[in-house]
């Protein structure tokens, strides 16, 4: 079968910037961060105070008692985003299509809060038993399984866990399955809810969390801000989507991966550059056709110059005019869900002709000498865009998107 074009017919999102795509885009397009004081756990036990939480979230607003009991916060977010994406796609699931649809989600941590609570029960509260639903809540594939059951989808389903690249790897796998004809449609993206006390303390020990806020590419940047949420997309073979008159949000045209073989936490510009080059090659794109990159842009001392070097290596002089921004400056670093949030942001940027800024930017860093769209969004109609994810452990995944004219 010849390769098929793969389009995005549904988008869904929940994170600190909003509970749906419209709210998410409103914040992104105004450059308004969703970062604030941590409320989910006792922040006085932490050396940092801020995160990008889904503020005021209440499970009972979305799920009944029976469903809530089996869903960790990360799976709840994933299902909320899936509901929005599937509704937006307008797909009606015939028995045949259910068999020919795949589900690929990404999560680095799985049911982190459930695990934290279960272990606190044992070690701290001296309970003798664990919550019997702990395992099905904790497992990282919980979201894929819940989506499968919710819609009766019986095609291939799996979850990818590659730290901060999880969602990009997941979306890439779903894209390849649709392109190659393994499936006709896919539900893909990622979710994460990593703001448990145990996990926050572990991040604190890494000494990479900012004391104030996330300032990617800014000289005074001092670390990440952890976030949470989910982003989900419905992918379909273009001809099938067109045949049913679907609204098309954008197109995925390429996917590239690489491994650094370098260090368990330190990034490598060579590895990142290889993933970018692989995505361009897969899409058949010349570097100068790319107008925007949604950067990995964590705001750590080491990521941002390393990513800058990788972009310069691949794009050469075009890097001087290429627009690059890190939306982590607004939705925080949602770890395994980051790629999914950023994929949704990139699709909307191409569709709306407006590039979200790098918020919280103070002053340039000569080592990050890119056009990072500081603080104010920019009107720009780009044809192609990339979204970068580079994980701890040196596993890199880059997706190439194209604007789609309906």
């Amino acid at each position, binding site marked *: 079968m010849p390769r098929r074009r793969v389009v995005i017919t549904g988008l869904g999102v929940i994170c600190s910037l909003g509970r749906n795509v419209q709210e998410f885009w409103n914040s992104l397009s105004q450059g308004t961060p969703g970062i604030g004081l941590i409320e989910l756990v006792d922040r006085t036990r932490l*050396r940092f105070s801020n995160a990008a939480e889904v503020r005021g979230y209440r499970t009972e607003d979305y799920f009944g008692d029976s469903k809530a009991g089996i869903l960790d916060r990360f799976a709840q977010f994933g299902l909320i985003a899936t509901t929005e994406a599937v509704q937006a796609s307008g797909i009606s699931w015939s028995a045949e299509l259910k068999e020919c649809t795949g589900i690929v989600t990404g999560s680095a941590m799985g049911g982190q809060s459930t695990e934290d609570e279960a272990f606190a029960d044992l070690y701290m509260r001296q309970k003798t038993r664990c919550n019997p639903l702990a395992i099905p809540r904790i497992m990282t594939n919980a979201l894929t399984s819940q989506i499968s059951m919710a819609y009766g989808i019986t095609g291939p389903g799996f979850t990818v866990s590659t730290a901060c690249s999880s969602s990009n790897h997941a979306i890439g796998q779903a894209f390849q399955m649709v392109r190659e004809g393994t499936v006709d449609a896919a539900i893909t993206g990622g979710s994460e809810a990593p703001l448990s006390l145990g996990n926050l303390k572990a991040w604190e020990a*890494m*000494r990479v969390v900012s*004391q104030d806020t996330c300032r990617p590419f800014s000289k005074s940047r001092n670390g990440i801000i952890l976030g949470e949420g989910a982003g989900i997309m419905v992918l379909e073979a273009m001809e099938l989507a067109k045949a049913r008159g679907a609204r098309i949000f954008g197109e995925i045209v390429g996917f590239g991966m690489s491994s650094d073989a370098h260090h368990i936490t330190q990034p490598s510009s060579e590895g990142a550059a290889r993933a970018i080059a692989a995505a361009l090659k897969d899409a058949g794109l010349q570097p100068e056709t790319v107008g925007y990159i949604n950067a990995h842009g964590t705001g750590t*001392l080491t990521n941002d110059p390393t990513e800058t070097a990788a972009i310069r290596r691949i794009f050469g002089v075009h890097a001087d005019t290429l627009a690059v921004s890190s939306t982590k400056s607004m939705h925080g670093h949602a770890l395994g869900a980051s790629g999914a949030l950023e994929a949704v942001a990139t699709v909307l940027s191409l569709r709306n002709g407006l590039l979200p800024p790098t918020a919280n930017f103070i002053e340039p860093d000569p080592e990050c000498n890119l056009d990072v769209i500081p603080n104010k969004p920019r009107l720009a109609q780009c044809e192609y865009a990339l979204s970068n994810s580079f994980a701890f452990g040196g596993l890199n995944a880059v997706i190439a998107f194209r604007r789609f004219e309906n």
Partner: protein
Amino acid sequence: MSELVATKVIAAIAKAKKIAPETITLDSKFEELNIDSLDGLNLFFELEEQFDLSIPDERVRTMRTIGQVVEEIDRLLAERGAQGYEPQVEI
């Protein structure tokens, strides 16, 4: 600079990197001792445990030599002493 603190810091590095304490001086730089970012995290974690104190991230980021580590621990111990704090560990 406290000799006791210096001895403890050097001993911790010697143990972690499996090298003789005599090869480490206050002027030794992290990279000369092959202390990478993860080694550094572990070292500061160990020293915080030993001295029962908390070394701020922004201080850690600016340190390049063993002497700077000793100075920082001295500073934190003095600060704690000024607050009338009784050390939990013997230094």
